[in-house]
Every structure is written in structure tokens, then in C-alpha cells.
């Protein structure tokens, strides 16, 4: 199974069109292997992006360098996946 240890989901709040465009630039950087759960839309609407562990530092520095606010929506994606599997197994065994 694909492992998402250390992957985080960041919720980005772009306040103006210039910041939205900056986030869209991120989307173009294939090597970061970003997975946009909720794509960059317009100022004021959240953008949720799953960031692999290896790209976390670069993305956070990029956002901070451009004064784009973000918060961590999911601290560790794999932990949530493990919880989901445990819930399903617990139900099945019950």
C-alpha cells in the first residue's frame, strides 16, 4: 500500500488574486508531487493541498516568503489512514 507517513495537508488562504496566482505556480511544479484536494480558486476560498514529506519545507518556505497564510489541516495523513483502517477492521471483526 502507498504510504503517506509525514505527508501533511495544508489549507492555504490566498487573500488576493496575486496570491492565488502564486499558489497556481506551485501547482505547476510537478517535482513537488503536490495533490490539490481543493484547487486554487479565488481570493477568500481555501485551497487544500497534500504535500509529501520531502516537499514540505520547500512549500512552507515558498508560502511564507510570499506572505501567504496557511494552516496545517492534517498533521500526518498516514495517521488518519491508519485510524480509518482500524475503524473498518474493528467493525468487520465485530
Amino acid at each position, binding site marked *: 500500500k502507498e504510504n503517506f507517513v509525514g505527508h501533511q495537508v495544508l*489549507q492555504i488562504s490566498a487573500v488576493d488574486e496575486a496570491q492565488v496566482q502564486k499558489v497556481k505556480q506551485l501547482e505547476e511544479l*510537478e517535482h513537488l508531487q503536490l495533490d490539490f*484536494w*481543493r*484547487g486554487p*480558486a479565488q481570493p477568500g476560498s481555501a485551497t487544500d493541498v497534500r504535500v509529501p514529506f520531502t516537499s514540505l519545507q520547500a512549500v512552507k518556505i515558498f508560502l511564507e516568503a510570499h506572505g501567504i497564510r496557511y494552516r496545517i489541516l*492534517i498533521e500526518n495523513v498516514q495517521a488518519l489512514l491508519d485510524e480509518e483502517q482500524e*475503524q473498518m477492521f474493528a467493525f468487520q471483526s465485530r
Partner: protein
Amino acid sequence: ARSTGTFSYATYHTLEEIYDFMDMLVVEHPQLVSKLQIGNTYEGRPIYVLKFSTGGNNRPAIWIDTGIHSREWVTQASGVWFAKKITEDYGQDPAFTAILDTMDIFLEIVTNPDGFAFTHSKNRLWRKTRSITPGSSCVGADPNRNWDAGFGMAGASGNPCSETYHGQFANSEVEVKSIVDFVKDHGNIKAFISIHSYSQLLLYPYGYKTEPAPDQNELDRVAKSAVTALASLYGTKFTYGSIIKTIYQASGSTVDWTYSQGIKYSFTFELRDTGRYGFLLPASQIIPSAQETWLALQAIMEYTVTHPY
């Protein structure tokens, strides 16, 4: 589960469990429910649609699909709950009974079976189909960018490795083509509702162009009544509007194509999110999400019955 009565709607299920559920429902309600196979997936899995009908011949119909983006698990789980709800409410809830006495309902619970199986076996966060694109090592296309409505325009990606890759050509994904053929063959579908998660949105055409849909005002009124009904249960607030105005440009989307076929009441849902889990919504949220969404669906279905065209 031995029956749909002992089936648990408060946990996520595998493809096999959902397919078994469908068969149990048909056995338990042979006069109301039948199972149609509208095609086979790229990897050869059957694609099933449940038909709820109280008779008549090719009655006007309502289409509901869940799970076209495989990782959006709360949608397939809600689809299972909707199926059970329909069998419970018919003959009991007067308003819903009137709907099913007038129209048929088609419900495709797992619209992307290959992707769904892959989310259980290899990658929980898989979104696309599992088709192979010649010349690329990346697999799958976005089944909500593969429809013949503005296909390939801005708002989709031509890169097979992208999560919004539109596919080699319109309807290249057999999971999409199967629905297209079904809709065209049936010819009397009056409402088409495609269900995604999350973001709490109710969207209507267009996604690929900014000009308003001819029925913009009516669709907006229907959407408003639907999200008002949805919010009445747990207060979950939905935003509504055209795809391009509410979120962003998205070309080749399902409801842009169904609308182009004359299916006026074409909507896309994005179900609830608690702002904490995204696609990994805890199983405890399945039933509340399904319950509130059903209120919105019923509002759209009642409007469709009372506004024939």
C-alpha cells in the same frame, strides 16, 4: 451482512460489500428495485446501476451517481444509504412516494469501480480511473474532465500525470462512456445529480465557460431551496452557484454534458467537510452527511416532478 437490515451504514465498505448490498436490496424489494449492468470498467469490473421503479414504461427519470472520484468515500457510502432510504420511504413518506409513483430513479453507487478498488488495495487517495495512456507511465484520467462539453479546454490538464488529466479524447474513459450511452438510450432523464465530496457546494452548469446557462435563474432558485433543506437538519452550510463562478473553470465536466443533452436539472454536489479531514471524513460522519444530503436531493426531485418539461 445477511440483509440490508443488518448491513452497517456507519462504516466504510469495500467494492465487494457494496455489490453484495445491491444484490440483497434487489432480493428484498423485487417489485421496486432492479440492478442493471451498464458496462464494464477498464479493468473489467461490472458497472451497476440500481433502478427504482413502480411501473410504467420508460418513465421520466432522475439520475444520481456517487463515487466518480474514487477517494471521496463518503459519497459511495452515502449512495448505499440513499438506496436503503428509498426502499424505506416508498409507501411511508407521502411526498417521496409521490415522486416514485411518477418518476423512476437510477442510482449508480460506485461510478468508478476500478479507482474505488484501488483506494482499498493500494492507494487510499486515488481519484482517477485506472486506464493506461500510451506513452505515459502515469495511470488514469479524471472522470469529471472526460465528458464531451468543452473537452480539453482550460480547466483540465493534458498531462496524464495530473489529477485533472482529461483523457485521450472525450468519453475515452469507459466508465464515462457507459453513462453517456445509458443516458442517450434512455432519452427521458429529467434530472441528473453527480455527487462528490468535500467543500459543501451545490453547483450547476457551466464549468467550462463564463456565459450563464439559459436556465440560470431557475437552477439558482432550485439550488437555493435544496441547500436550505439540507441546512435544516444539522445546520451544514452549503454554497451554491455555477461551477465556474463558485469554484473555478472546469472543462469536460459531467453536468455540463448532461445539460447540453437537455437535462435541465443538472447538479453537482460537493458533500460536507468538517474542515479537518478532507477525503478522510470519519465514518461517524457518513450517516449525518447522507441524511442532510437526502433532504437536498428530495427537494430537487420534488421540484423536478412538479415542473415537467
